[in-house]
């Protein structure tokens, strides 16, 4: 076994140790905290590179991709040991590199962004803990270990969303995020115990005995459950429910936009690049289970019930969230809905094209979305914590570097042809969707989503960076109020320090370059994941309708960009309070979009109301039904006691008393007889004597 496989645990363990050390140190050791966290990620990145190199060395040939596992016994029940462990394969290696590298850049950025926060140390402690959990998810070769790390990730997400806990909105958002994702996690938990019961192991790969290997899969396919569904399908869907929660898919997406209450680097790291992608990663990890028993479609892509559902959920989420993003005004919320939408694309990619297609978009998205979030953090920082894009404008002039990198991120996200990674990864998904044998609808939904994406990103960039700065207008109109001090010239937006801009530039570089590894002409990424040899073939660019599709998707992107420029770039809004162009055009639709299709309100009146009702009902039942039964019993007891006393006093005692009275009467009478008075005694003796004599005289005659 290669040393890196044996020591893969070091990668998650390092940030965990860093978090532990930071947590026990007293507050003002900022440098120590930051260097420990960043250092652990840097070492982790180097180790990930080693792991990556190891997977390269063995790749290719007919034996499939490189895969080695390490297991150790963890706990014991029923006399048997349950072992857990980790796996190194291309999927792990790619995710490890992405998470450690993007994580490291975001950590560095945070040093600048959080510089003035009093809880700087705690922030880095949570960040490091998060990284540890995320890396644990990535390396786990066991669904239980994955679940444990998955929940730790959920916990840190909760802690970081609620980092500014004194804000009630942040505290509420944190709670909402934890609970919403936990609904999905229950599905994952049930799926996990079911999988365990069916296969007797939770290890993914174990030399042929793992739960994702052919033996176990074949066994699960033969069992049918409710409605004739194969057990593997049911388990796959339950596990997918966990992914739906974590990756903010319909209908559990509501937490992700609210999660923007956390500090922006957190949004970049957790709610864009890594944690939310964990759901996609989970589906990719258990892909053999999802694809088990497939009727292979025309392009060699498996088609199963589970994958079909994954596709539909993904496609619907993609278009749904993209349309909401069009009508938002908060710079971070636009990006949040964009993230939800892109995660939908990834799910769709997994469903229609397999692991490589979904994962490629995951990786490219991680870079450009982290870039966009950090860019927005830089903008927010520069604009003195302003997040409303209507109050920005013209920032290009004040923040040139931020503008340049933001433009790169925006074009990558929009899928600008040829030069940006997002184009290649999104195109691959659309291409796969086009060839999907079940339905063409996801393809059209994806295309519509692409149009929306290009449009809302253009709208955002136009409003934020072009035109003239509108941040002062509000203040000058209410200049006499508490805000008057902000109208001084020192409060123009300013460019961020180098500690923030350098990571941005690096991310921007990757947002452009990463496309290279996944073009149809040189599909290195796909072949690496599948363990094939890669061949450079320009001809593939034009073969099989690829070119047509590329051209049409480019046209869609240009339409979106053009619409955005026409509606928002040409006619810049003058004041922050002005009505949106679309709002003026279609107020009703705009309002629905702005209110996110009223999903939150729907949940408010259904799920939350029901939950409160259930709580009330249980409390009521406790007090009045169960407690009432107890009361009835106790009153019955009291009643019997009272009745008993009554019978005692008026029946039992009555006879008793009568007896007593007669005895007492008799006694009284008798007592009178011996009252101790000698005269009475003598009198009685006298009378008795007379009577005796009389008896003796006359009695004999009788």
């Amino acid at each position, binding site marked *: 076994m290669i040393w890196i496989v044996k020591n893969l645990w070091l990668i998650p363990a390092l940030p965990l140790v860093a978090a532990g050390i930071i947590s026990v140190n007293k507050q003002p050791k900022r440098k120590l905290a930051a260097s420990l966290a960043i250092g652990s990620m840097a070492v982790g990145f180097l180790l990930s590179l080693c792991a990556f190199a190891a997977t390269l060395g063995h790749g290719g040939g007919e034996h499939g991709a490189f895969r080695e596992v390490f297991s150790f016994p*963890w*706990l*014991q*029940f*029923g*006399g*048997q040991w349950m072992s857990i462990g980790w796996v190194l394969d291309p999927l792990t290696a790619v995710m490890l590199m992405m998470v450690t590298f993007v994580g490291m850049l975001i950590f560095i950025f945070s040093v600048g962004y959080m510089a003035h926060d009093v809880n700087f140390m705690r922030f880095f402690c949570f960040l490091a803990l998060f990284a540890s959990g995320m890396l644990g998810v990535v390396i786990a070769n066991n669904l*239980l270990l994955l*679940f*444990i*790390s998955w*929940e*730790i990730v959920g*916990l840190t997400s*909760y802690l970081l969303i*609620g980092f500014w*806990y*004194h*804000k*009630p909105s*942040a*505290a*509420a958002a*944190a*709670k909402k995020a*934890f*609970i919403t994702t*936990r*609904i999905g996690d*229950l599905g994952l*938990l*049930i799926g996990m*115990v*079911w999988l*365990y*019961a*069916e296969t*007797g192991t939770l290890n993914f790969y174990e030399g042929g005995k793992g739960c994702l290997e052919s033996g176990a899969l074949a066994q699960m396919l033969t069992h049918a459950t409710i409605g004739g569904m194969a057990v593997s399908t049911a388990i796959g869907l339950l596990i997918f429910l966990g992914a739906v929660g974590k990756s903010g898919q319909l209908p559990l997406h509501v937490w992700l936009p609210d999660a923007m209450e956390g500090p922006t680097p957190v949004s970049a790291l957790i709610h864009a690049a890594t944690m939310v992608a964990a759901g996609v990663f989970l589906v990719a990890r258990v892909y053999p289970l999802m694809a088990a028993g497939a009727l292979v479609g025309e392009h060699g892509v498996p088609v199963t019930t589970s994958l079909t559902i994954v596709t539909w959920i993904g496609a619907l989420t993609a278009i749904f969230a993209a349309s909401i993003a069009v009508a938002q005004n908060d710079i971070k919320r636009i990006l949040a809905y964009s993230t939800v939408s892109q995660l939908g694309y990834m799910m769709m990619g997994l469903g229609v094209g397999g692991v490589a297609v979904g994962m490629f978009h995951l990786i490219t998205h991680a870079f450009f979305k982290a870039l966009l979030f950090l860019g927005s953090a830089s903008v927010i920082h520069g604009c003195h914590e302003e997040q409303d894009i209507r109050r920005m404008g013209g920032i290009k002039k004040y923040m040139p570097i931020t503008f340049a990198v933001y433009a790169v991120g925006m074009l990558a996200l929009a899928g600008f042809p040829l030069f940006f990674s997002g184009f290649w990864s999104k195109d691959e998904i659309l291409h796969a969707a086009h060839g999907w044998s079940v339905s063409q609808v996801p393809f059209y939904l994806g295309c519509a989503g692409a149009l929306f994406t290009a449009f809302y990103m253009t709208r955002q960039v136009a409003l934020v960076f072009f035109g003239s700065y509108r941040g002062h207008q509000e203040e000058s109109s209410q200049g006499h109020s508490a805000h008057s001090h902000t109208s001084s010239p020192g409060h123009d937006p300013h460019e961020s320090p180098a500690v923030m801009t350098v990571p941005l530039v690096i991310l921007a570089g990757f947002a452009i370059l990463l496309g290279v590894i996944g073009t149809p002409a040189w599909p290195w990424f796909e072949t690496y994941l599948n363990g094939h040899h890669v061949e450079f073939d320009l001809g593939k660019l034009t073969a099989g309708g690829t070119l047509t599709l590329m051209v049409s998707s480019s046209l869609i992107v240009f339409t979106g960009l053009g619409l955005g420029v026409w509606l928002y770039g040409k006619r810049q809004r003058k004041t922050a309070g002005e009505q949106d162009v679309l709002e003026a055009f279609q107020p009703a639709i705009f309002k629905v979009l702005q209110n996110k299709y009223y999903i939150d309100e729907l949940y408010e009146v259904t799920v939350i109301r029901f*939950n*409160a009702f*259930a*709580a*009330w*009902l*249980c*409390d009521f*039942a*406790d007090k009045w*039904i*169960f*407690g009432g*039964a*107890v009361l009835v019993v*106790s009153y019955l007891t009291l009643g019997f006691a009272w009745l008993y006393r009554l019978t005692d006093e008026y029946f039992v005692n009555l006879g008793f008393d009568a007896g007593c009275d007669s005895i007492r009467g008799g006694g009284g009478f008798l007592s009178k007889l011996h009252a101790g008075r000698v005269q009475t005694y003598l009198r009685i003796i006298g009378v008795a004597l007379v009577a005796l004599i009389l008896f003796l005289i006359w009695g004999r005659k009788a």
Partner: protein
Amino acid sequence: MNHWLTILTLVPFLGGILVAGLGSERKNLVRSLSLATSLLGLGGAACMWLHFNAAEGGLQFVEKFAWVPSLGIDYYLGVDGLGALMVLLTAMVTPLAILASWNVEDRPHVFHALVLWLQAGLFGTFTALNFFHWFLFWELGLIPAFFLIKLWGGPRRGPAATQFFIYTMVGSVALLLSFIALRLATGSFDFIELAGLAKSGVLTAKLQAAFGWKNIALIVFFGAFLGFAVKVPVIPFHTWLPAAYSEAPSPVTMLLTGVMSKMGVYGFLRILLPIFPDQIRQVLTPLLWLAVATIVLSACAAFAQKDLKRMLAYSSINHLGYCLLAMFAATAVVTGVNHSDLQKAAALDGALLQMFNHGLTASALFLFLSLLEKRTGGLRGLDDFGGIRKVVPVFTGLMGISLFSSLGLPGLNGFVGEFLIFKGVFPLAPWAAAISTIGILVTAIFLLTLIQRVFCGPLNERWAKLPDLTTAERLLVLPSIALMFVLGIWPQFILGVVDATVVKLVQQLNF
């Protein structure tokens, strides 16, 4: 043959007499002596734990003498993995409760003596194997608890104590009658002997022969069931609990929830499951639903509470509900499930782990509440606080860890037990397991609501000067917190000791 267990039970009993004899004047001496006694008990229990032969798993440290031979009464002590675990838990929670009650100024000698006698009663209950003296200890635990609530409790302590006493008494009487019936039918009070009779199938027949009534075994079972169901408690026999937990002084609540609630579950595992497996199987489905109802309804009721102590009291019912679920499912006879013995063992291992974990976490949580009450003068409403994380960060952090342990966060102790329970129960009773997960969700909801209302949001100015934990208090909670992490990462510490016992129990149940 040794007398380790007798000595272990005598230590707190004699210590209690000594403490009571000191009088109310020498308060610090009373407290120190009481603490020393409980630490001695902890040391003894730890020795027993270390010397316990885990691989063997059967009864150990056995003491058996004929006591009243004519009535079939032996003095019979011994522990297996289950007993050892409970003795250890009792020994660990008691010193914490004594330290938490350091500030009791009213008749401290009586208070501490009662606590120690309560501990003696618990030790006796967890080690006795003959019904006669087991029942004495079972009741001996009840009386000190009653007086502790009645004399040192909150404003509505009178009704709470009476309710607690009467409820438990009714259960005990039912239990006693059942065992007298068993004694009449079999001539034995011995748990092990009775279990042996049950396994060979003779018990039911003997009961029927003795009473000439076909359903007598089921009636006898229900009597015993009632005794334990009240103690655990199983819904709907639970209404004494929220009142008792919230009116008792917090250190006493620590003992009530940490250890006394385990007496019921222990009774199920030691007595009910081995002696009445047939009867449990006859009414298995209703019992499973009762367990599910206990889990779900108590969690929902907790969400509706405004008093932190009542909320945690309902949460306690919820946590023990998982143990019930595991135990009932483990008696099921199922066909078509792979390795059903392994699943049963997983469920029972999970239940044992859950008992210990709940004892650890719930007692820690009530300890935190007692520290909070000490600072606020008894105020503990959900809406009385707000934003206090700002002024008491250490308190928040440590109590937060305990709360997350309670909601079953992986990495902390609560998770492994719940996972094993679900892992074992799901194949045996899928629907019951699936519906019970609602309890997990609702627990998360109300515990996070607690965190949100109490610790987050803008600081309630009333508590601007709330002092954070002192060094002594930090040291007090540190062992519990450390153990939460240790057991979360290394559950084998407990599983390694109890697993062999569980395997034996599963064999006992299978026939």
